């Protein structure tokens, strides 16, 4: 297909490795949650790996990223070390947010990763602001804003798309449509379920891609990003995907049929990518083993790092409420 990145073997294997890392990291996180090491809420990205990995290919180090509370995939794909993320979920001071945020609030300013937001729709205005700052400072960068299908119901979605389009801000709105806003199916909360079409109301270009196909995601995101970088204003890209696990660890999934989940699992992005690579002769069993064992080692190391990390001293409780130095 034209416009798609060529199946460069190195690149393709790298995409696979990144997806496998996310998968195994999330599985380990689930296990640690049941052991009480990770507390609070845990929202797993399993099934959606192609979205984080594919989109990240179109972003550079100068671009900003705003994400949701289901942001482990984006954080790992962005290059935040797994240990730093695991330690954050443990609540350790060596976590990326100093142990202050936990699973839902990963921040890494050095990688322009602006969270980790727990209020649905709450990150969109911030993304608009970051893009506004870049435009005012003539900084050639875009702001990628991840949000789910649930967020399109919030006022902020509409206000933010409108404002970004009105002021021609370089925002790449990335909607991870996994068909459920916690327990409410898209068809149950949207009169217009074709999310991509909502951009029409704001005279904004939009597209949709198969979120279970990492190469399709990459291709679509590159096109969308190019449009934003060209100065054409914001773009809405809808990625159709599915989460194989519950909304969070505490969800008995009464709202969807197990059969539906099984059907989507046949479209597992990792399995699909592996199959494609095998077919193209780019991947053999030794490659897969190497990737899996490398990832396993990375995840184990992340857990060790988290286990060994220090707790923030309670005396520092009021630190960082305000800046340390006030004029």
């Amino acid at each position: 297909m034209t416009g798609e990145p060529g199946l460069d073997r190195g690149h393709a294997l790298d995409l696979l490795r990144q997806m496998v890392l996310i998968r195994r990291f999330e599985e380990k996180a689930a296990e640690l949650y049941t052991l009480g090491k990770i507390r609070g809420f845990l929202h797993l990205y399993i099934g959606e790996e192609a979205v984080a990995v594919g989109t990240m290919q179109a972003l550079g180090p100068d671009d900003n990223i705003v994400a949701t509370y289901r942001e482990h995939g984006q954080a790992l794909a962005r290059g935040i070390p797994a240990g730093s993320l695991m330690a954050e979920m443990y609540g350790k001071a060596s976590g990326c947010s100093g142990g202050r945020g936990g699973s839902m609030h990963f921040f890494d300013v050095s990688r322009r990763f602006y969270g980790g937001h727990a209020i649905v729709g709450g990150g969109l205005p911030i993304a608009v602001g970051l893009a506004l700052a870049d435009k005012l400072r003539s900084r050639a960068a875009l702001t990628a804003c991840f949000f789910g299908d649930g967020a399109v119901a919030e006022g902020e979605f509409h206000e933010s798309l409108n404002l970004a389009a009105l002021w021609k801000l370089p925002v790449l709105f990335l909607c991870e449509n996994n068909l459920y806003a916690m327990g409410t199916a898209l068809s149950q909360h949207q009169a217009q379920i074709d999310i991509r079409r909502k951009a029409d109301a704001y005279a904004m270009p939009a597209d949709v891609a198969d979120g279970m196909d990492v190469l399709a995601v990459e291709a679509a995101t590159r096109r969308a990003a190019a449009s934003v970088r060209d100065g054409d204003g914001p773009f809405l890209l809808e990625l159709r995907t599915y989460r194989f696990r519950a909304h969070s660890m505490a969800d008995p999934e009464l709202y969807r049929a197990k059969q539906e989940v099984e059907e989507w699992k046949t479209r597992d992005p990792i399995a699909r990518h592996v199959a494609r690579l095998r077919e193209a002769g780019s991947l053999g069993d030794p490659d897969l083993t190497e990737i899996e064992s490398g990832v396993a080692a990375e995840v184990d190391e992340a857990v060790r790092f988290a286990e060994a990390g220090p707790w923030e001293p309670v005396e520092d409780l009021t630190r960082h409420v305000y800046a340390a130095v006030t004029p």
Partner: protein
Amino acid sequence: MGARGGPDQARVRGGDAMTKMTYREAIREGLREALSGDPRVFLMGEDVGRYGGSFKVTYGLLEEFGPERVRDTPLSESTFVGAGIGAALGGMRPIVEIMTVNFSLLALDQILNNAATLRHMSGGQLGVPLVVRMATGGGRQLAAQHSHSLEGWFAHIPGIKIVAPATPADAKGLLLAALREPDPVFIFEHATLYAVEGEVDDGAAPVAIGKAAVRRTGESVTLITYGGSLGKTLQAADQLAVEGIDAEVIDLRSLRPLDSAMVLASVAKTHRAVVVDEGWRMCSFAAEVSAQIMEGGFYDLDAPVARVCSAEVPMPYAKHMEDAALPQAATIVQAVHDMLGAHG
């Protein structure tokens, strides 16, 4: 340009570097200085540009600085406040105007969950140097949805700072101080103050945030207030003076952080305190001041701290009803009388 009559015509140049100007002009001066002096500063809000500002504060600034620096926004409080937060994260120094505190409720999520929280939640990586200005208060027969005084709600939140200038000099001084803060500052401008005149030092330094001001010294009772209630409190003090009761009036200027040291020092002298606050009495900001006086100055009190606040009602429209709901000089005087009468 200038068809409506420039506001400059209203200014009278005083001696030295002091100029007499209105509260709104003082803010405008502050905005102008900020926009001229720092390319990172820009304004954002409803009708701040073409309309000239709903309270005429930003009048002329669009023409002077252009649409990139003075931005009219859609009626999207949540998003343009959130965009202010994002722009601050991105290195700018936005000054967001929420037309009135009544509309700020739409932006409370961005204010509380983002502006106030990002620094702590990110482990210190992020700071939000954002300034938000809002008109506040009642007294203009605008009825229940347009007359709120919610400073107390905002002062409840750790991570942000709250100021309420009561004079033109402070309106400019606190704005300039707010722009230097690395953390979000919310400036509450009582809508009845915009036309009030006062002396403003041209070369004024920013007014320190967190420092109250003694507007009138006295020995018999301390009247503590802020913002739009200062005028009434001073009136009450004048009336009390005629009766031989010498009141000290403290203008808090900052609500968070609160200058409890100055308040306590005054109470140590007068042994009596009345807090005047336009918010509703229950869970008011006045309740906080009262608690702090109790904690820090219990043994200096000869009487319980009194509060003069708004009645626990949605603001009515008819003038006599609205007047009855709000603190007035007469009710402040009465509170002092009650205090002196009952406790000697």
